[in-house]
């Protein structure tokens, strides 16, 4: 059975070191601009930091992928082309992209640079995967988190290319690459600016003893005095539909597919991705270590370790302290 790769997030040099030191087979990184879907202030790598990170990973045999997964915007296309060229110059192990123009540029000018299809491309079928493989020579695709486990298995059965799936981290309720809610409220979206519900558009206020969070002026949630308040990510607010006020789109939870690991391995999934380039080095270290142990166990033919302590730890690290199998479990849909 082929080895299953553990792909971990590195939003900074300390996070990269944490992932490498705790057993990541590969890390994914982004440049400090709008070319990747975690374009948050203070995150990601400038040219110098990128060079140091790549060196650190390479000395320990860890592969480095560049997340280049926003959509190149008219008039600003150079930023994306430069990033592809830089990845080729650095000899990175893959570029993770979704935009047709970016993939086209990479395949024409750097035919030896491996291409992975980003989850932002929302490719959910063998036919869609085939298009990207045939047009650009894409070798691997990261599957959207909207697919149920049996749909993942059906895709894997045809296996038009290597498949990577999300294992753990924040959960997008919407199909990646197909959500404009953030720009509807703030003018900036994952597709155009690599951000969702950006902090610069967040306002907190207090009214009649209740805290209110707003995004781009839109009331996202109200909290009672003792109620814990969360970051006003647009899809996680409480809204009114009919007579009810509730989490009309999503309850704040995180994805955790630890228990699906044996099935994912049996299906021939090539890699497991951990979400969270915006999270701390400590988070990356803990999650990487837990998943390393689990993948090693399953690859030895053992079951996923019970390890209640590790599970409690994952739960604490999760948003809303709750985890779910997400769309992998049909009942969630």
């Amino acid at each position, binding site marked *: 059975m082929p080895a299953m790769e553990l792909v971990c997030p590195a939003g900074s040099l300390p996070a990269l070191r944490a992932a490498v030191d705790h057993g990541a087979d590969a890390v994914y990184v982004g440049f400090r601009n709008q070319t990747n879907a975690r374009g948050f202030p203070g995150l990601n790598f400038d040219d110098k930091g990128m060079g140091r990170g790549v060196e650190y990973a390479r000395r320990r045999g860890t592969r480095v992928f560049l997340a280049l997964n926003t959509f190149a915007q008219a008039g600003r296309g150079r930023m994306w082309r430069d990033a592809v060229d830089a990845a080729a110059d650095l000899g990175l192990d893959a570029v993770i992209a979704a935009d047709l123009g970016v993939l086209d540029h990479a395949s024409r000018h750097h035919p030896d640079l491996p291409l992975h299809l980003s989850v932002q491309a929302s490719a959910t079928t063998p036919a869609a995967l085939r298009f990207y493989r045939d047009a650009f020579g894409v070798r691997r695709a990261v599957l959207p988190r909207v697919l149920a486990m049996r749909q993942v298995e059906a895709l894997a059965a045809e296996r038009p290319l290597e498949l990577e799936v999300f294992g753990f981290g924040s959960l997008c309720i*919407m199909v990646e690459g197909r959500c404009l809610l953030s720009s509807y409220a703030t003018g900036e979206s994952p597709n155009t600016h690599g951000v969702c519900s950006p902090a610069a558009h967040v306002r907190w206020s207090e009214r009649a003893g209740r805290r209110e969070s707003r995004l781009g002026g839109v009331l996202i949630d109200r909290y009672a005095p003792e109620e814990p308040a969360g970051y006003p990510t647009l899809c996680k607010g409480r809204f*009114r539909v009919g007579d009810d006020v509730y989490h009309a789109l999503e309850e704040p939870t995180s994805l955790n597919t630890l228990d699906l690991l044996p099935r994912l391995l049996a299906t021939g999934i090539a890699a497991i991705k951990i979400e969270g380039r915006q999270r701390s080095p400590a988070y990356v270290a803990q999650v990487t270590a837990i998943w390393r142990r689990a993948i090693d166990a399953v690859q030895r033919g053992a079951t996923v370790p019970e390890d209640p302590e590790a599970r409690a730890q994952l739960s604490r690290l999760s948003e809303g302290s709750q985890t779910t199998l997400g769309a992998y479990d049909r009942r969630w849909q």
Partner: protein
Amino acid sequence: MNTPTNRPRLALGPVQYYWPREDVLDFYERMAATPVDTVYLGETVCSKRRALRPAEWVEVGRALARAGKEVVMSSLTLVEAGSELGAVRRLCEQQEFLVEANDYSAVAFLTERGVPFVGGPALNLYSAESLAVLVRRGLMRWVPPVELPAEGLRRLLDDWQAGDYGPVPDTELFALGRMPLAWSARCFTACAHGRPKDDCGFVCMEYPDGCGLETQDGEPFLTLNGIQTQSGRPLNLLPQLDDIRALGVGGLRVSPVANRVPELLEECDRVLRGAAPARAVAAALDEPACDGYWHGAPGLRPGSV
């Protein structure tokens, strides 16, 4: 007001809601007599909605074609199950009508066949380089993402001219109606009724214009439409017609609402012909509209009239 000689094409997008079969048939029968030029047909949101069978959509298309309309079959936007993919493949294999591809499964089938096709608003084409990839493979018309501002479209078309890509494809703007903003594996309308998606009871049929979602302080914000989330307010780009025309846009798309479509199409036609001011469309719309995206601002910003 100038009197334009080249009136942009007036198009009617696919019905995004779940209407009863009789209403759908009646709706398209009435479209034959309107000044619309192009009609997009088919279910693009949820494969569980089966108002018409594929063969019936073909019949509706034939009737509209006989009335002189250009007919395009639109494909499903979020394709997951094998049965859904099969339906998309069959749609792309029929040879009678042009197809609008709304995901890359349809793009794959159409490019493998080597036939001309329309690229829908969910294909994420934000640059001349991306558009060129599909034009080389047969795309003859495209609908830009609804979040693309006028300035972005202008730059894209400038890049196209500068880039030696050949003739520019026909650009059709999503111009009037509630904008599709997001897609999900989850059905929010079923969820609002406390039902699981697999036993949804087809509750979408209770909302011929989608189910409104408001903020806790009572502002209309979004519209739930099954697995699709739309803008709370409709978009109205008709007041921007001079700029739209200057960009060389070939067509304007009206997205159907439950009532008033014939009146809206009449008013749009009069505005496009220079026979009425843009506010005639706003009056026919009869609810406040937004147009922030066009100006590079948050999409929900109220529009001018």
